């Protein structure tokens, strides 16, 4: 062990110096991926044959002249499998120049909070995360920018995913009116079931905010709230201070669409609040609207199992196209109903699936479950009884579970995940 550490310390200290031409010929600002970086090192290697540069190394420090970032000379580039760290020359306005060069491409940026003596800036986008650390020899104040500074730019290149599921944000349409209907509740000593458009979206909950857009498929909607005593310490009746109040709000403009006045809760019988409300969404999803009524489907249980089984097989087989087909409609509709053009939700969900593929080696589907029919039998939700969830993925010290709303598109004989 000692020897290996000794070796690593030595290797980390190997620095390659060269006296190539001074022309700015290796531009790191053009690099957009880890593979591009490898290509650039290979080019540097080819053009500097006398130098000992290894384009296959996972920890390479290069100090060849001619390296730059958008015209700002780079004195040293450290290239690893995880990040690229570029250090400018010292004492030559380099930090200031580098900040200006990055801002020219990525927009103006504010300082990130930093407790150290240096200034830090951060940029995040779909292909890379950048952090710029500026070391000011004369102290921290921005006015000290000048000839006594240098900067370290760290770039983490993110993998590029071509699968549509990871690129949903590119398909999202934006509108002038992007209503986001939300139910806000305030209450004391009670729990409630919330049913929107005949879909039970939660049961015995005491959360205070619910996104409704995902359950709206047309301009006319209904909501039913069943408020029940919180059965704490065996109590069956409402506490004398118990109350409930709620409002449906359009978060886009804070407009109150419908409100339930503050109501004192008495007795032990659940109290039902019910109202209709109109929504004006610029986009109504197809969702389960053309779905078949599943209430009399004798093979429904088998179909539920078959769907989760297909999902399990696709995950373990790392069948990206199959996973895309299983989740795309759900994810697209939900992100569109959020009018969210940010790259992160789709990317992070896709990366969750990739990590399940990486760490899990088996899946288990519940065989015993209750089926709940919503929206006139077009939408179902299942509650596993023999397992914690409908599908469990298992790896060594890893587990991941899924439970979804399902429907059966017209003309199809298979269920689909829709929420």
């Amino acid at each position, binding site marked *: 062990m000692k*020897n290996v550490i*000794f*070796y690593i310390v*030595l290797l980390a200290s*190997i620095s390659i110096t060269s006296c190539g031409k001074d022309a700015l010929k290796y531009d790191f600002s053009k690099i957009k991926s880890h593979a591009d970086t490898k290509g650039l090192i290979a080019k540097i290697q080819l053009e500097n044959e006398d130098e*000992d540069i290894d384009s296959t190394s996972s920890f390479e420090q290069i100090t060849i002249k001619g390296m730059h970032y958008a015209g700002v000379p780079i004195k040293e580039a450290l290239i690893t499998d995880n990040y690229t760290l570029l250090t400018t020359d010292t004492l030559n306005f380099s930090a200031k120049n580098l900040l200006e060069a990055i801002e020219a491409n990525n927009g103006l940026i504010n300082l990130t909070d930093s407790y150290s003596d240096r200034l830090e800036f951060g940029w995040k986008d779909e292909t890379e995360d950048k952090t710029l650390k500026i070391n000011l020899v004369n102290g921290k104040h921005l006015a000290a920018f000048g000839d006594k500074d240098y900067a370290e730019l760290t770039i983490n290149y993110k993998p590029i995913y071509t699968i549509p599921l990871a690129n949903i944000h590119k398909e999202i349409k934006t509108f002038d009116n992007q209503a986001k209907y939300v139910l806000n509740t305030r209450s004391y000593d009670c729990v409630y079931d919330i049913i929107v458009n005949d879909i039970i979206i939660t049961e015995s909950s005491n959360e205070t905010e619910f996104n409704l857009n995902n359950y709206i498929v047309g301009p006319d909607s209904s909501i039913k709230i069943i408020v029940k005593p919180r059965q704490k310490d065996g109590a069956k009746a409402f506490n004398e201070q118990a109350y409930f109040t709620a409002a449906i709000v359009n978060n886009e403009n804070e407009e109150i669409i419908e409100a339930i006045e503050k109501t004192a809760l008495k007795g032990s019988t659940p109290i039902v609040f019910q109202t209709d409300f109109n929504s004006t969404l610029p986009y109504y999803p197809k969702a389960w609207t053309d779905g078949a009524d599943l209430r009399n489907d004798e093979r429904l249980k088998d179909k539920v199992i078959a769907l989760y089984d297909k999902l399990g097989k696709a995950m373990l087989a790392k069948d990206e196209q199959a996973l895309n087909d299983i989740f795309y409609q759900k994810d697209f509709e939900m992100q569109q109903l959020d009018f969210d053009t940010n790259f992160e939700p789709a990317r992070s969900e896709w990366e969750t699936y990739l990590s399940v593929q990486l760490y899990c*080696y088996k899946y288990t589907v519940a065989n015993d479950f209750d089926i709940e029919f919503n929206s006139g039998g077009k939408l179902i939700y299942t509650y596993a009884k023999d397992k914690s969830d409908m599908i469990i993925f*298992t790896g*060594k010290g890893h587990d991941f*579970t899924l439970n979804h709303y399902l429907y059966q598109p017209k003309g199809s004989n298979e269920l689909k995940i829709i929420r």
Partner: protein
Amino acid sequence: MKKLIYLITALLTVISCDNSQPNDNPELNEFISKLDDKSIEEIKEEMNSNVKQFESISKFFENSFSNEIEVIVKEDEKYEEAFKIDTTGISKALYQFNDIVFVQTFEDYESQLEFTKNNSDSSKPINLGEGVSQKFIPNKIYYHDGEIRTDSIADYEVDFTFDEAWGKVKPIDSIDITYNLNYVKDYDVVEVSLDKPKVTFKGGEITLVKAEGNYIYFTLSDTIDSPVRIQGYNAEGKVLDRSGYSNNGIAPGEMKSVFTEMLGYFKKLQEKLNDDDFENTAEFQEYLKNNLSNLDFFNDNDGIFHRQYYYHGNVKSIKLYFENDSENRETLFTARNYKPFKETDDLFAMETEDATVFLNSKGEPQITIKGSDGLENTGGNFYEDYNYFYYLNRAEKRLDTLLVYDVKVFNNGLVGILPEQENEHYTLFTSDNKPIGSKSYWLMREVGDLLFGITDDDKYYILDENANATLLTGVTKISDNLSDDRIIVSNANSKIGFMNSKGKMVIPFKYSDAEDFEDGITAVQFNGTYKFIDLNGKVLFDTKEDDIDFLKKDDQEKRIYSFDYGKTSYNYKGELIKK
């Protein structure tokens, strides 16, 4: 790869620490003999793949010895304390080894041991004061198969940071080790400065060659023993903080040529190997032995040792402290195997380059599974690596992969498996991977050799090796510690009692607070005040105190019971400590 890195470091040790001829150099001979079990083809391959690495390493050395001499401005100078012998920690150091464990792993037919202090926050021995040095000398190795080894073990390293080689591949139960402390009682001080650059000392000479800025270079005759401390002083006589140093048998400026020469030597060896000049390993070893002495470098005959020091300040003189008289203190302790070999294990896994070999307690290979690596035994026949759990199927002589969330092997041989996820129940299996017992448990706990299964309704059961479950009436909480054969347990009314290591309640639930037993007694609270009780619950003494502090330790790591913010204290025997 590892072997060649070893070769480089071994040779570096030889060149920097030893002036004798390599022919009779024991370290080199030992290194050469390590090649015994390698074929000439393997050596050739390693040499080819690694000469390039050495080239990089020698590049590093070229740079590292070219420190620049600087003149340090006054306000940037850093100082340190003048040398004085500090023996304050000695007593504590001698008593720090009451619970030392080691982790034994097996690789390529050799045991690897790493030691840990199990009795305090730090896993390493305490830092010693100036002028105090320590040594660990292994005396006896108790192997699990009954063998007790005492010969040729004194040089095995008791290392608290790294794995070290400890000879034959056989499970060790425990090791007796002598801990030796040596501290300087009396010392000589020798000062050299530009005014007085040469001093004669004990028949040799100490000579200041150069002092410039933060750099000083001086030499000592090889006949003079190493000083215990060297400190640099600035013009006002302040002790400067050291920033770097280099000690060498050869004069500065010659290092680069040494590495060039070494590299040349390796390349020559590589060429000869590739030309198939050696018929077998023995021939190669012979060549290595004879030719190392031809390297100019080993002929360091100038009789002096060169020291270069760099400081955070401008150094004008150097004081060298030489030991004159010293004293030894010794203590003996036993280190135990952290994961001892159990009868239920009876085979253990060893990694070799291309396989995992399962050996019995005598170290004899029983089953070899090619291609697997990184296996770690989790108990009995169960193993894991980074990605999977495995069951060693002895009948079929193969590893069965267990596609489950978790596998826990308990001391009594029972195995608890979470088949799918973290928040489900453990199902029980025998050491042969057969389901056993009818109950499943949402939590399994082990205290000493007792295995507890806790069910959904918060009931505690003791499980024997056949998964027979005995309900522990009234128990709602069990402490993690078994101490003096007693475990703290509580009931639904938060009253505390004690159970023994067989699971029998020996002191009923009656205390509102209690500490673990130690040295046969403990303090418990009932009827308002803390009382000392013995292992049977008999009250020895009522302290009349109603407020106990956190437990403390004395210099000898024995417990102190302290009450009412330290106003009254009792020692580990329950005797009042007089202020």
